């Protein structure tokens, strides 16, 4: 049983370890991603960690051409856009994450409803190295 406190800090640490974790209400069983302290459904306060399979389908997306500074650092820009989107997981919750393995320069080729699978990518070097969550066509 995972004993870390239910929090965004723990959630982000799990991502660094390549794990997609949500929270499950011990009272009513509802699963949340990202994890929540309290259950929206029954207002239960007793939550436990729930590992998610990382399988789902693409619910919507956008391709970003005017990029924020932290994505420019990865080499993205007007001529090299990236795709990000909303994935509905097989367990029910939704995730916002980068979508890779698609042609962001031709956004109309990307299909809503396509099956996708989570991947954990390592970027940066030394102290700046970090892992981020993305989804790719399954």
């Amino acid at each position, binding site marked *: 049983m995972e004993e870390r406190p239910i929090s*965004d800090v723990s959630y982000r640490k799990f991502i660094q370890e390549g794990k997609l974790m949500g929270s499950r209400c011990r009272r009513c069983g509802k699963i949340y*991603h*990202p994890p929540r302290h309290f259950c*929206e459904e029954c*207002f239960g306060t007793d939550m436990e960690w729930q590992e998610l399979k990382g399988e789902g389908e693409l*619910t*919507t*997306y*956008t*391709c*970003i*051409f*005017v*990029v*924020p*500074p932290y*994505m420019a650092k990865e080499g993205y820009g*007007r001529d090299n*856009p*990236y795709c*990000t*989107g*909303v994935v509905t997981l097989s367990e029910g*919750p*939704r*995730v*916002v*994450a*980068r979508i890779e393995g698609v042609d962001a320069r031709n*956004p109309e080729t990307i299909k*809503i409803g396509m099956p996708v699978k989570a991947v954990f990518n390592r970027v940066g070097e030394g102290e700046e190295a970090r892992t*981020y*969550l993305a989804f790719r066509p399954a």
Partner: protein
Amino acid sequence: MRGAAKGVKGGPVMAGKRKIGRGVAIVGAGMSNFGMFPDKDSKDLFAEAFRELMDSVDKGLDPRDIQAIWIGNFSNDFFVHQAHWGPIIADLTGLAPRAVTRTEGACASSTLAVRDGIMAIASGMYDIVLAGGVEEMSKRTTEEVTEGLALATSPYEGDAGFTFPGVFGALANAYFHKYGAGREHLMNVTIKSHENAPLNPKAQFKQTIRDLMEARKEKARKKGLPVPDWADEKEALFDPAFNPPVAWPMHLFDCCPISDGASCVLLVAEELAKNFTDDPIYVVGFGQGSGRGLHACPSLTSFEANRQAAAEAYGMSGLKPRDIQFAEVHDCFSIAELIHIEDLGFFGEGEAYKAVAQGETRREGRMPINTSGGLKCKGHPVGATGVAQMYEVWKQLRGEAGERQIPGRDLYVGATQNLGGTGGTCTFTIFERR
């Protein structure tokens, strides 16, 4: 606790049950020009708005009668590195040491100022309140402003590389997929806003799309470059050289600009309103809701905060969507206008894009939307926007909107819808002329 748990999912608990305790009216309004003003700061802009407000009170205003101030500001802390704008505005207007409170609800900050002012008057605490907003954004680069605005997205969206336009791009794709709409339908919103704005002397962009196409052709001719031969506005808007992508399918002309500006209204207890003017505008309903970000929205073609706000305001006023004759809605991005006018019940779900295509939201249409030119063309100094929307409704209801006055009908009921962040805060306010 009757129905308490059902309130969130099954419709607002408060709807139809809470009435305003004491009526409130707007008896004066002012707004600065909106645009990018290198030589004006937030104080200059608010002074411009307050000066117009004082002149707008038909029977005159002694500013010493104002008892308290609420001022909306999103993030001048970031944009001009100065926080705590309440006392600065109190000092500017000569109203110090009266109480002043800053409200923050991202792009809905100044509607929250009005809401607090209404509640203060309704409670009996004050009788006469100044409420407004200000934002000064253009001193920063576009990248910095984008970063500043992104402070108001949901934290998880930033992690995933979402920008503000990106969130609305994702909503647009969901809307397209669900209803079969396309970019050409978003263009109808943009073209309409650009038709209204030239009639608004305070608007940031006063050109129609055709004006801008002609200007681009002229520039090409002068430079000896190939002259574009677009057949119409949509052909130009489909041309990435004229309208480049920002966050697909959001393109440059789907997005509101970076702006500076200020706005304010004078709120008074209903029983005092006729001391100030024979033509007050009464606040008959207001509502506010909160939203949770893309990962938790029950629908990606609607804002849950809008639905909460609308249910509250309709319930309070006893009015229905069909009673609203015109509205200013928060078109920070073209898709937002379509979603709002469905959420507010003006059009059915999946119907707005068709109604806009048929011209129903134009000034002459059945349901004029954003006669001011909207955020797209009037400009969007975020903290000033909500009250600037009210300024337009005040002008239209009193028949003072000049060339952009809605033609051919007596106006009695108008409304404003204001959105903060990516839907984290939404408000809906209904105004009536009696």
